[in-house]
Structure formats: structure tokens, C-alpha cells
């Protein structure tokens, strides 16, 4: 479980790796479908730190479902369960262009501040392109 303050401070703290934050939930079919794309980058590209941000407890306070999901799918990427009340007050802090719909992905070079934001499911190869775009 991670509080919003911790997530926001992570996003704004410069680190060597490119950071990718994918906002998802276990109930969200297009989210679950695109998870392997993030798992692949997590496996292949050590310069990238993938974080899968579960929004499940916005709707259901019991995180058990998420733990079971992680086990069942054998997720290797870092997963955090975001604990943050009143999304209206913080959605724009993640990105102005985020409607709040899931899935959503933030790709950020925390050193240069270069960022990309995608408010829909990723297409094959799109994540790699976006990572390359913020690297330079």
C-alpha cells in the first residue's frame, strides 16, 4: 500500500532509470490485457523501472483481490496499491491530460522532466517507442 504523497514524491525525484507508471485495476479488462507489455519491458530493459499502480481500492477497500491477482499472473514488475482519497483532488497532479479512465500510463525521465502520457491501452511496441522518446 502506498500513499499518494509517496507516489508524487517518487515521480518528482530524479533517478537514473526511466520510470513508467501504469495505472490499472484487476476489474479493468483492457488493463489486464496490456500488462504483458509492461512485464516484457520490465524483463528486457534494465534502464527502465516499471511500477504497476493498482487503483482497485478506490472501489473496494479489501486489497486481497490484488494480492491474489499478482500471484496468479506471477507479475514480476513492482506493484503498488495506491491509497488516495478523492481522486478529483489529485488526478491532474499525475497528468493534466488524464481523464481518470483506466488504463493510463505515465512515462517519465525524472532527470530531464521529459514525459509522455497515454490515456488508453498501449499498442504493441508503443511503450518501447515512448521510452525511447523520453530517453534522449
Amino acid at each position, binding site marked *: 500500500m502506498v500513499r499518494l504523497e509517496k507516489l508524487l514524491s517518487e515521480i518528482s525525484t530524479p533517478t537514473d532509470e526511466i520510470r513508467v507508471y501504469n495505472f490499472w485495476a484487476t*476489474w*479493468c*479488462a*483492457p488493463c489486464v490485457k496490456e500488462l504483458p507489455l509492461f512485464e516484457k519491458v520490465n524483463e528486457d530493459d534494465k534502464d527502465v523501472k516499471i511500477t504497476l499502480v493498482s*487503483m482497485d481500492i*478506490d*472501489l*473496494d*477497500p479489501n486489497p486481497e483481490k490484488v494480492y491474489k491477482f499478482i500471484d496468479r499472473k506471477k507479475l514480476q514488475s513492482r506493484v503498488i496499491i495506491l491509497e488516495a482519497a*478523492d*481522486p*478529483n483532488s489529485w*488526478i*491532474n497532479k499525475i497528468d493534466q491530460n*488524464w*481523464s*481518470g*479512465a*483506466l*488504463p493510463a500510463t505515465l512515462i517519465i525521465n525524472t532527470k530531464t522532466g521529459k514525459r509522455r502520457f497515454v*490515456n*488508453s*491501452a498501449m499498442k504493441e511496441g508503443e511503450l518501447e517507442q515512448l521510452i525511447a522518446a523520453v530517453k534522449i
Partner: protein
Amino acid sequence: MKIVNFVSLIGLTILIAGSLVKNGYEVGDTATDFKLKNIDGKLVSLADFKEAKGFIVIFDCNTCPYSKAYNGRIVALSKKYSKDFPLIAINANSNEESQGDSYEDMVKYAKKHNYDFPYLVDATQEIARAYGATNTPHVFVLNRTHTDLKVAYIGTIDDSPRNASSVTKRYVEDAVDALRAGKPITTPKTKAIGCGIRWKDA
């Protein structure tokens, strides 16, 4: 002079192009009417509601857990405001992308949940695109002026999808109450976590 004109022409072109690709409505924009098929098979337009002072238009669906969590609250909103701000629900989900959102499913769902308001199908997704709906449920409160319909509120129903009893901010009710009282709306735009509308080309 010619160069200056050329530059300003480019500027103008960009400005026009920019306004054409605009993503849906902002508060204060004029909303378009529509003619969409209801669950009873009849076509429904906002113009049909002669007495309405405005509308609560909700892009919704059968399948999203947020829609399910809000279902009872949507039925209650309709009951509370049906006289002067009728509620119109629109399902824009593509059934190919989202199983359970076909027209037949909508008919069953509305019956099961005692919908006493129109539940329309936006098969081409044109109305959802025009309004800039992104989530379900996504609310647009419209205010009828003597000439047209103005968008008065865009966003979520309240601040607690999880639990109706722990709501502290009733955004939609506050917006409609303010319109009824002729007062400005305190929070005219909100965002919430939710299911994305299932677009056809996705």
C-alpha cells in the same frame, strides 16, 4: 508585408485546425442535441422534453464496476430531478469491445434496475465523442437557455464511488440545485477514476 500575411495565415490555419480537433466540451460550451434509440425502440431527443429546464446526461454502461456502484444513485438522481432536469443515460460502449453492452443487454439491465429514464444507445459513438465523454459514468449537466443548451457541469456524481453513505461532496446534486436557484456552480468540473469508454477502434 506578404511574409507577415503568410505568417498570420499559417497562425489562423493552426488556430482553426486546433479548434476542429478539440476534445469534447468544456463548461460553458453549447451542447448538441441528438436522436438516439431508447430501450423501448423509440428515438429520443432532448428537444422532446419541452418542459425541461436542463438535463442530467450520463454516459454509462452495463458492465463497468463504477457504473454498477453508482446504479442506485443514478436511479435516485432521476427520481429527484425528473420534473425539470430529466436524466438521460447513454451507452456508447462498443459491444465488440465490451461484452454485455449490446442493445439487448441494455434492455434487460434497465428492466432489472427499474430505470424510469431513457437509456439510449450511441451506436456510432458520435455523441460521446462530441461531448468528450471518457469514462463511465461520466455526467454532463446541461442548462437550457432560451436559445440553446449550455454545459454547466462535467464530471463525476460524487466523491465516494465505493460507498454511497460516505459521500461528502454531491457534485451533480450541487450543480443542479445551483442551476435551480440561479446561483453559480461551486465545482463545475471534476475528475474521477473510472472505466474508459470502450471505443470501436481500440
